[in-house]
């Protein structure tokens, strides 16, 4: 990537998305059920329900499922993938990469770059930028970026209503007639902001409550989105869709208002009410929901957010190949409809909140 003054990252050669895939576990718990257990009021619950990883799932298994669908859409052989990056804050191992397991499971090993990224909920878009850079510089032909989480939350904490499981995988390559969307540029805004963290060895994260809104989420996302638009000479009206990180359904709508983007351009990507906040998976699944319905020529604004804190903004333009490729693997809506409701006791068992 060539970085110019002002901070926009614009690939020197055109880069596109060859394929994408998502995976959302089948289990759901209703926010009402969580509220019932802790004796909370039932109104103003942030989401309807959230996706819960089954007892045999973790960030690695979800990443592999999403990655296999991405390969199916891309129509390539796994050994053609020369880089696999997994962005997550739910690593099954504290030390040992997820990416090696994912790359081996896909069949991309052993001639492959592999590493894990960590930046709260924006680890996946961080992996986007690395992949785009590697492709643009001609160092690799296909690079895969995955954002996935099985988010942790302390029982009875406000996060418990939303902390969910899911992920998405995107394969980048040089723009050609088989890519489904090409990238126009990317812009990042990062500061040291202590809104949310988890210390080494702790099971659950800590957060600053209301502080997570204005100085954290809204400041970083707004600055990244405005920076991108100003550098690329684009206005909010140039975008057909906007995809924002969704910690809850309200934040992305409020952000749209700040940026002057009509709500109906944001709503198609909002899946948080039915699956919860999938952390690093959130921007990926949001972008996939838009690719599931977008038309060639549509311009998509993507803005991630990761606590700690930072935002990555991207502009994509949808290409003709989307029409055929989107049908090669299940869409986000298939995963939303595929669900089994569980109660709090099963949830506690699945998420190992019961110690035996």
């Amino acid at each position, binding site marked *: 990537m060539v970085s110019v003054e002002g901070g926009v990252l614009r690939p020197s050669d055109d880069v596109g998305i060859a394929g994408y895939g998502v995976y959302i576990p089948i289990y759901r718990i209703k926010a009402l059920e969580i509220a019932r257990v802790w004796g909370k009021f039932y109104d103003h619950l942030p989401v309807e329900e959230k996706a819960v990883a*089954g*007892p*045999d799932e973790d960030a690695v298994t979800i990443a592999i499922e999403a990655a296999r669908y991405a390969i199916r859409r891309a129509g390539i052989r796994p050994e053609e993938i020369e880089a696999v990056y997994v962005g997550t804050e739910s690593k099954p191992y504290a030390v040992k990469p997820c990416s090696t397991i994912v790359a081996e499971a896909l069949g991309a090993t052993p001639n492959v770059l592999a590493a894990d990224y960590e930046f709260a909920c924006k680890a996946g878009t961080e992996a986007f930028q690395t992949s785009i850079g590697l492709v643009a510089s001609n160092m690799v032909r296909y690079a895969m970026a995955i954002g996935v989480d099985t988010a942790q939350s302390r029982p009875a904490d406000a996060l418990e209503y939303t902390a969910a499981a899911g992920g998405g995988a995107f394969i980048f390559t040089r723009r050609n007639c088989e890519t489904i969307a090409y990238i126009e540029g990317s812009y990042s805004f990062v500061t040291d902001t202590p809104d949310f963290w988890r210390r080494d060895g702790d099971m659950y994260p800590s957060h600053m409550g209301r502080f997570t809104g204005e100085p954290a989420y809204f400041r970083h996302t707004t600055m990244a989105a405005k920076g991108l638009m100003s550098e690329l000479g684009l206005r909010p009206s140039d975008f057909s869709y906007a995809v924002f990180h969704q910690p809850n359904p309200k934040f992305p709508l409020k952000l749209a208002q700040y940026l002057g983007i009509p709500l109906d351009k944001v709503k198609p990507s909002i899946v948080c009410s039915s699956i919860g906040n999938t952390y690093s998976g959130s921007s990926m699944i949001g972008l996939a929901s838009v690719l599931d319905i977008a038309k060639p020529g549509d311009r998509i604004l993507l803005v991630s957010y990761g606590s700690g804190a930072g935002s990555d903004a991207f502009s994509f333009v949808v290409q003709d190949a989307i029409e055929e490729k989107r049908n090669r693997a299940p869409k986000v809506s*298939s995963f939303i409809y595929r669900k089994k409701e569980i109660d709090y006791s099963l949830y506690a068992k699945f998420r190992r909140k019961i110690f035996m």
Partner: protein
Amino acid sequence: MATSAYWRTRFQRYRLIGNRCKECGKVFFPPRFVCPACGSVKLEEYKLPERGKLVEYTVVYTAPKGYEVMTPYVIGIVELEDGVRVLAQITDVDVEDVKEGMEVEASIRRLPEQLEGGMICYTYKFRPVIK
């Protein structure tokens, strides 16, 4: 499971890699060193298809230690698209919903930990096809 045994079998666990006898064409999963049908040692790598249908199953209510979190769970024989049959756990399905003939596809899942602080084992299971 021993770390070394798990590592040696990772390709079959992750990617359903078996082998096929070059002499008589029989397919083996897990892979074999010698063909039990014709005695040939000329075997080549063979990747099994990842889709198939459930032909027979049983429900496990009393599980070995560590598997309590999964009970009740389904173990079944899956006939893959090329006719090869594989025994595996069927996941993401309730005992009351499972049925013979169900279309399934391979998925990689995590096995219960045998040892605190030990390695995490991932292996194939089958789940209903997502349309």
